[in-house]
């Protein structure tokens, strides 16, 4: 070690005796030119499509997807190659991204996504990483080709003009709306929204006092007995219940809801006149007068239907309630704003009333990647924050909201 240091010091500090200064400088100059050229060539070689596709993960999964899009093949003959979108163009960010690729090399060696199934399962992680990058730099790589300042908005279709002019005003990141333009969107149907796991774990730690009101954080089955053997129905997420007692794993809760006095009255709603589903009971139970107590009866002037205020008690599994509904709504809010803005600016919650939302939402939800649980929470969120509940949205009666909803 000492010898090495000494020879290094000699190498740098001792003047040369046999080689002239000019030769040394010229030699160093040539070496420098060659080294820099070599470095750039290597950078360029690792920035080629062929290089990306040399991994079979890229070649088997992402290439066929890209080949179906306009970024591969179009009438103008201009096309995007992998690094045009996925490698930053500035030196520092580019070098950092290339070093970050060590993680991808590791993934390749470990076979993290070496089959189509594994890749599809992992896609959401990869996509979110890339979406995050694009939203941080305002989709800089997209804008190397598509920049707002070079767009002729008048040549766009009228519907696009509105959206694009507004986006340009806000200098919005392209990928905010244009997700999945070059590859398939991550498959999320049937998947679980990981945000619920936090809710469930905080519900498990919630201390519950008998006689107080709580909110469901996940849908639950309802039972007639504390042994939870006889199922009588199911209760929806975010429904308010009064906890009466806790015995072992079971909790007796009181439901105080509304239902339409028509058919079996199986579906129970949270408010008079509003179709906000809170619980669905089995037929025999819903008809059983010893189980369901009717407190009040009112006619809904909008539909002429008679609504009953009902109450019942039932058993459910404990550990799924919270004393505040706000954590549930914050998940719903996040999901609503990110999923719906993929294609359009999402309407304000209070732009429609509680009975308009289910139809609208049901028509749109299949275009999103929400899983079923999330979709239910989001719909309930929209209904309970609709114009029927909003105080800031002026006249909040269902009538006026319906009119503003249909220009």
């Amino acid at each position, binding site marked *: 070690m000492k010898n090495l240091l000494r020879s290094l010091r*000699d190498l740098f*500090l*001792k003047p040369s005796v046999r080689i002239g200064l000019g030769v040394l400088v010229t030699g160093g100059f040539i*070496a420098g030119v060659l*080294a820099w050229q070599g*470095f750039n060539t290597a950078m360029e070689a690792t920035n080629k499509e062929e290089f990306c596709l040399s991994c079979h993960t890229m070649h088997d999964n992402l290439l066929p997807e890209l080949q179906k899009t306009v970024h591969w093949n179009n009438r103008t003959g201009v096309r995007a190659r992998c690094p045009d979108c996925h490698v930053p163009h500035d030196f*520092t960010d580019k*070098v*950092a991204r290339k070093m*970050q690729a060590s993680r991808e090399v590791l993934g390749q060696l470990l076979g993290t996504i070496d089959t189509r199934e594994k890749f599809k399962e992992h896609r959401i992680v990869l996509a979110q990483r890339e979406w995050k990058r694009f939203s941080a730099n305002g989709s800089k790589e997209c804008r190397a080709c598509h920049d707002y300042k070079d767009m002729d908005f008048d040549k766009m279709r009228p519907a696009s003009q509105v959206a694009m002019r507004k986006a340009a005003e806000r200098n919005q990141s392209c990928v905010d709306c244009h997700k999945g333009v070059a590859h398939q969107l991550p498959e999320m149907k049937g998947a679980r929204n990981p945000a619920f796991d936090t809710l469930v774990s905080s519900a498990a730690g919630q201390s519950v006092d008998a006689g107080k009101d709580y909110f469901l954080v996940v849908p639950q089955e309802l039972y007639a007995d504390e042994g939870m053997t006889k199922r009588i129905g199911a209760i929806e997420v975010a429904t308010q219940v009064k906890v009466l007692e806790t015995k072992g794993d079971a909790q007796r809760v009181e439901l105080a809801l509304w239902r339409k006095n028509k058919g079996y009255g199986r579906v129970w709603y949270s408010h008079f006149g509003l179709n906000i589903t809170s619980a669905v009971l089995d037929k025999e139970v819903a008809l059983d007068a010893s189980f369901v107590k009717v407190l009040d009866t009112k006619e809904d002037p909008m539909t002429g239907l008679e609504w009953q205020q009902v109450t019942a008690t039932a058993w459910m599994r404990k550990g799924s309630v919270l004393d505040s509904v706000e954590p549930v709504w914050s998940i719903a809010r996040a999901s609503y704003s990110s999923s719906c803005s993929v294609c359009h600016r999402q309407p304000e919650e209070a732009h429609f009333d509680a009975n308009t939302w289910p139809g609208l939402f049901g028509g749109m939800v299949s275009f999103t990647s929400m899983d079923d649980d999330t979709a239910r929470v989001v719909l309930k969120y929209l209904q309970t924050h609709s114009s029927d509940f909003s105080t800031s949205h002026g006249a909040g009666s269902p009538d006026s909201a319906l009119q503003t909803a249909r220009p």
Partner: protein
Amino acid sequence: MNNQASGRTAPSGAEPSGRKNEWPRFLLLAFVGLPITMTLAIAAYGFVVWFLQILFFGPPS
């Protein structure tokens, strides 16, 4: 001045070998040693920037 300093410390036998190996040492340094050092330095820079992005800055803006 440097010349004088080396003149004073060198005569202990290191100089003849230095003279003999001057060309190989020069070529090795210029065409192998320094390019490798440069590449390593840039790689290290890249890693530092990446780690800073993970820890503090978030993705580049």
